[in-house]
């Protein structure tokens, strides 16, 4: 895979997911923690997953970011509760991993096109 063919947005999403996951786990003062956690739990995974589809409509794309982010977090949290392994830190790590994996899949798409 040619790194140069990967878009800046894909790289930025992946790196932001890693950085914000770590920051959220370490902890921040309340308003910043809220922003970081919402980004890493909902917005970044939603954006990374929505970019895997070929959605071109900006409004639908923005809606899918929210819907996919919330749906993915619901699936991850519910599965963890059923498996009795839930902790919010584990959810943060899982959503970070999902974002990075989605960015890698997107990078492969970009490399092949």
């Amino acid at each position, binding site marked *: 895979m040619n790194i140069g063919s990967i878009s800046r947005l894909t790289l930025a999403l992946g790196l932001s997911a890693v950085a914000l996951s770590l920051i*959220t786990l370490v902890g921040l003062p*309340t308003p910043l*923690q*809220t922003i970081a*956690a*919402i980004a890493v*739990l909902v917005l970044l995974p939603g954006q990374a997953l929505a970019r*895997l*589809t*070929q*959605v071109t*409509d900006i*409004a*639908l794309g*923005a*809606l*899918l970011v*929210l*819907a*996919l982010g*919330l*749906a*993915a*977090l*619901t*699936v*991850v*949290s*519910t599965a*963890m*509760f*059923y498996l*009795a*392994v*839930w*902790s*919010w830190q584990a*959810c*943060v790590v899982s959503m970070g991993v999902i974002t990075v994996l989605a960015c890698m899949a997107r990078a492969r798409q970009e490399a092949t096109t």
Partner: protein
Amino acid sequence: MTGTLEATTRTKERWKSREAWCALAGVVSLALAVGAASTVTAPVDNDLGLVAVLPYPFWAGVLILNVAFVVALRGDAAGPARRPVMIWLVVVLVLVLFGTAAFVTDIPRGEIAFRHLGIADALSHTQGIDPDIDGYFNWPGFFALLSTVLRATGLDPVALALWAPVLNMGLWLAALAVLTGYLTRDPRRRYLALWLFCLGNWQDQDYLSPQAFGFFLHLVVIALLLGPLAARAPQFRGFRRADLAAWWRGRSPAEPRPGYRVGALVITLLLITVIVASHQLTPFMLLIGVTALTLSGRVWPSRLPLITIVVLTLWLAYPASAYLLGHPPLADAGLEAATEANVLDRVRGTDGHVLVVQVRALLTLVLWGLAAAGAWRDWRRGRLDIRVVLLAVTPLLLFPAQVYGGEMLIRVSLFALPFIALQACSVLLPTDGSKLSTVGSKLPADGSKRRSYLAADDSKRRSYLAAGGLALTCVLLAVLTVTGRFGNARYDVFTHDEIDAVAAMQRLAPPGSAIISAAHPTPWRSEAYLDHRSRTIEDLCRSDLSTARCGPLVYDYARRSTAGAVLLITRSSEASLVLQGVRGAGGFSELEKWLGAQNGVELVFSNVDARVYRVTP
């Protein structure tokens, strides 16, 4: 015709200042509404709820906002005002209609949001799911999400519950804006549909709840079905088998890119799974909508209803089986039972409360009537969109299937509302949306000037009449919505004294003890959800709340609890029983007097709005 004419530079300049005035009107109406609502103090001592105590500046704000919206919607011949202005006005409407209670008090309205916070708290403590606890633990998706969000973000749960109606309406409107984009290209119709959706939303289902989350995902799924997963159906030729087969085979995907369709289908399946795991009713509403759209030939993946049924059945058979064993889903089905629980049982209580219930019914009927007239008008012009009709009507099919605690009609009207609002636009807007405005239209330069001026005058008069009628309709709907939505404020707006009493009760009740409240609107169980058995006097005594019969029942129940019991009587719970006609104006004073005289019962906390009694076993 006017839609094709370009506005002159002078008109553009004038229009820019008009847009600025509309935006400013939004600021003024928000300031008026917020200022007026914040002068109201809890408790709300009126059977009509907030509508009777909100001061006139609130209504001035509502009036200004609706007039500004209609002016912005009129716009000019090129279309309505620019997008930021329209979106700003919708934001203000959401804050005015759905944030009103949050400007009155900093305590979330109603009991259920508190309970939902308690379930999320319980999940995060147990870190596992026991489906035998209660129904909520059979559909834990939303609560799992809530637990994670609250713990990871550090948000104040009560603040989240307080502002949940505004947040949920924002999510619903975002989904609806995308969805309506696939149903109409007319921006005026889209903005008016959003506006009417807000004005008709008296159902009060936007609090912190699984159904609000499920409804958002439901709208996103419908948007995907109408967008990337849509199909073009050939002309329908009849019901003969060969015609039907040819019609079905003649469908083609509206989206040409197969990869995009597959991606949209995967997202749809994910959202359906989350809806199924989060709420009991929403998947059935979705199934009906998906099936109707598929059978109309307008959805490309034809097996989607079947997949939905499989996912739903698997969930009911495994994770939700514990609940279904004790609650067969069709046990209380039937039109008669549904009518009695959803309509007849609700039209009782004090005069004020009955009036509020009638206003809710009137508002629903007005919107349905407008939608029916709009459908008739579209049909006569050959422009009726069968998808809108199907999505508006099909939720009604669930009405006789389940009583749903007397709330089925409320849910049916909510799921139909987006499409009822869109269909109502057909009668509230002129056939050609641009005729709502005459601004920017040019007079012909050739002869017959006088006739042209007369025609222009007539057109202008009609345009002003149409706009005035629309503004009046919107204002009336707003008044009806505030009445219906906040009609229970006497008992679902809590005071700080009541919250203090609940905190005292939770502090005084040892783990394993029973906690008893007078009736259901009690802001309790937001903490230690699993630590106590909770009942209400209303539940224990059923139909007879007289002291002679009810007193011994409550006392025996409390005394039988080996870890003891704590009894809470609040102003709001008493008011709910009085308002709904279950008990007389005297409340529980006689019952409290009787209980206070019994062995092992002592008053341990009291303030203006609440008393807490401890019962030792």
